């Protein structure tokens, strides 16, 4: 017998944004004492659905019942009153306020930050968080900010928690910590919904999965009774293979040689310390490391965007001629065929202009071409259409401003544009950050095609499993130093993980 009653029942929920139907008659049940994983491709309407539960959006049609009572959620405040708290993908925190101030934001009554701090400490003790109530948000790491968000909803007495892609910005260790906390809360009888793209997280954490596709509810089932393959098939709508190809590199020749590269940030902090390696053509060099270990600086130095303190970066032509890249401006480096696609945490921060449409964003790379006084608008349009078609970008048209696309689609546009410039060196960072599994595989495919075409690919990734499957060689960075370079085939996740946290891993014990 089923002794659980649904905490939340959503029935026939429909929401449209102009011509786009984000949710189409969706049904969803959420139970207490259970972790529900909400799955779906980018733009399948998961976030929209949850935003209606948390009062950000208002449904066009359908009804929501909480503990058997039909409710109307008009604003986030209504949601709080019903015990619903959402942790958004983009944190809803005010940078210049302290943790405590952010947590009490929006509540009523007299402002007593001391009492608030007390209550925050007791919540932290109960679930095992670490939050300093008086720390300013801008001084916090991503994972600390997320903790503040979770404490914020608990402080309001929420017992239905929604987390939108909470692990997208966390390191593996931080993810483990978060999962432990979430299990604590589940055992405490809270209902938890987690939106994620990472299959192994779904399998590891959730009790039940619900799947959306193109705004429609496809089905739900206990996690134990399904597997990654079946869930992916349901998300995509047809069978997909979950293996990443790794063809043998053909005719690999040194393309970029980096020697003793040292880079300091503006604040004088050592970001890269004596980094040396060679990237070969027709090969994917994976770059692993805990975030902030110099990955960004490394790619930017090669692209000419980062002042270098010492060392050399040489570009080696097919005929063996060598050219020093340090001191060249980014434009001439790009003209040599070095393309950089860096997907920052906020996805839009670098490379795309949010208010411009797809075609114009394509033009950012090509506007210098052509001799005429006027820019060539035709080819960017074609390119935009091409990218939309090949990468299956979900957009009303190529004249839609990029900011209106969902996160994953924005990324496809960015990566698609960089690949289209037919580079000889492709620098890519976090290319699949936040992308659903289907789109991720499209991107891996594109990268593999570049490799087959003889491009030297530098692939900075955060998902170690993917790095191990995709890369020919893996360079592990640890605190700005090269911890080691290992062949991708046969590398063990555990070893690479050790090298990420400690220079040289545990080689000394071997």
């Amino acid at each position, binding site marked *: 017998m089923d002794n659980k009653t649904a905490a939340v029942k959503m029935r026939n929920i429909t929401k449209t944004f102009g011509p786009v139907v984000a949710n189409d008659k969706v049904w969803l049940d959420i139970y207490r004492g259970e972790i529900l994983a909400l799955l779906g491709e980018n733009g399948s309407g998961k976030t929209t659905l949850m935003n209606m539960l948390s009062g950000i959006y208002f449904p066009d049609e359908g009804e929501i019942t909480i503990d058997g009572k039909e409710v109307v959620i008009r604003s986030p405040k209504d949601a709080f009153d019903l015990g619903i708290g959402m942790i958004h993908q983009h944190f*809803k925190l005010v940078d*210049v306020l302290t943790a405590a101030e952010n947590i009490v934001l929006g509540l009523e009554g007299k402002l007593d930050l001391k009492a608030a701090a007390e209550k925050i400490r007791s919540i932290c003790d109960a679930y095992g968080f670490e939050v300093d109530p008086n720390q300013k948000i801008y001084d916090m790491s991503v994972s600390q900010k997320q903790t503040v968000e979770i404490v914020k909803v608990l402080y309001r007495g929420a017992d239905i928690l929604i987390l939108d892609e909470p692990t997208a910005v966390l390191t593996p260790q931080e993810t483990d910590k978060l999962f432990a906390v979430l299990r604590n809360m589940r055992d405490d009888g809270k209902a938890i919904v987690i939106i994620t793209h990472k299959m192994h997280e779904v399998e590891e954490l959730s009790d039940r999965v619900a799947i959306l596709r193109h705004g429609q509810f496809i089905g739900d089932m206990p996690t134990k009774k399904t597997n990654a393959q079946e869930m992916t098939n349901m998300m995509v709508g047809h069978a997909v293979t979950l293996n990443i190809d790794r063809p043998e590199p053909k005719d690999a020749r040194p393309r970029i040689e980096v020697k003793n590269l040292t880079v300091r940030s503006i604040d004088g902090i050592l970001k890269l310390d004596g980094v040396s390696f060679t990237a070969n053509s027709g090969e994917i060099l994976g770059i692993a490391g805990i975030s902030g270990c110099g990955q960004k600086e490394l790619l930017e130095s090669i692209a000419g965007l980062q002042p270098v303190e010492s060392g050399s970066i040489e570009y080696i032509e097919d005929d063996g001629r060598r050219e020093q890249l340090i001191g060249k401006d980014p434009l001439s480096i790009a003209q040599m065929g070095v393309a950089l696609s860096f997907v920052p945490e906020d996805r839009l921060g670098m490379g795309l202009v949010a208010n411009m449409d797809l075609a114009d964003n394509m033009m950012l790379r090509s506007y210098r071409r052509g001799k005429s006084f006027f820019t060539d608008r035709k080819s960017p349009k074609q390119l935009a259409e091409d990218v939309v078609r090949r990468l299956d970008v979900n957009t009303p048209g190529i004249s839609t401003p990029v900011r209106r696309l969902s996160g994953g689609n924005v990324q496809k546009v960015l990566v698609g544009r960089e690949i289209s410039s037919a580079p000889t060196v492709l620098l890519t960072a976090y290319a699949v950050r936040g992308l659903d599994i289907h789109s991720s595989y499209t991107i891996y495919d594109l990268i593999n095609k570049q490799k087959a075409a003889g491009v030297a690919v530098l692939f900075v990734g955060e998902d170690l499993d993917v790095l191990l499957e995709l890369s020919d060689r893996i360079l592990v960075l640890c605190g700005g130093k090269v911890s080691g370079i290992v062949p991708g085939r046969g590398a063990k996740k555990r070893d690479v993980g050790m090298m990420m946290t400690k220079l040289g891993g545990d080689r000394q014990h071997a």
Partner: protein
Amino acid sequence: MFDILSFIPRAIVQGVPLLLGSTGETLTEKSGNLNLGIPGVMYVGAIGGVIGAFFYEQSLPSPEAIVPALAVLIPLLCSLLGSLLMGLLYCFLTVTLRANQNVTGLALTTFGVGIGNFFGGSLIKLAGADVPSLALSATSGYFSKSLPVSSAFGKLFLSYGFLAYLAVIIALAASYILNHTRTGLHLRAVGESPSTADAAGINVNRYKYVATCTGSMIAGLGGLYYVMDYASGVWSNNGFGDRGWLAIALVIFTIWRPNVGVLSSFLFGGLYILHMYIPSGMNLAVKELYKMIPYVVTIVVLIITSMRNKRENQPPAALGLAYFREER
């Protein structure tokens, strides 16, 4: 010889309109609204008071029949009403219709000055004076009434009309509300990140409306003080000068802190009239250079705060941006 004892009170009376204007603008900016219409709002605040005072004085059978309470209250309420309407207009355009704040603000400045000059000119005609100005000395007397103390201490601290003290009280109260109350916390959140405030259940539009309209009314009092107290009830078109812009500069100078504004406004007032106290002979060019000082100081402050790059000293992060919940 530099006469400090006469310079300071004059600096203070120059500073009071700036203090009211900048306190109002700070409150407005804390809600994320960059109201560049403040010069116009202050102008309307001034003419509102003048209209009220004029018709009150006209309605009296004889100058002796004047009632002190009404002489103060009527111009005060008219002034508040005028600047409130300006604030409402600004909010309707920028918050409800989400028009561009800079354009709206600049338009309101032109609009406000135009309104003021139109009614000012009409009243001057009605009064039938032979000079292009209007004197409301009877009501003005109640605005500039001060304690009859003639010691140095009295001259420095007690020689001002009630609006001057009100200005300081409002600035300190605004500062307390911003930093120590829930309302202030919510207001700051709205200006920093409206989507965060919205997700926290704060009614963003209401905060923007209330803060901007309150700010406008406070700024309007600055105009009222200028004409009824500082100018002794004499209205002449365009007499207000560029004090409105100076008030906006003062907001930056005080790095969005009304309590800092109290002393800074007096400093600005001093800088504003410094050219009259420094002997520059017949060379008018040098005088013009001295008049630049408040603005130069503001630029220097901008440079210093930008270089220090302390997050608390930056303008509200969402300043100048319209907010729409379902936009992404």
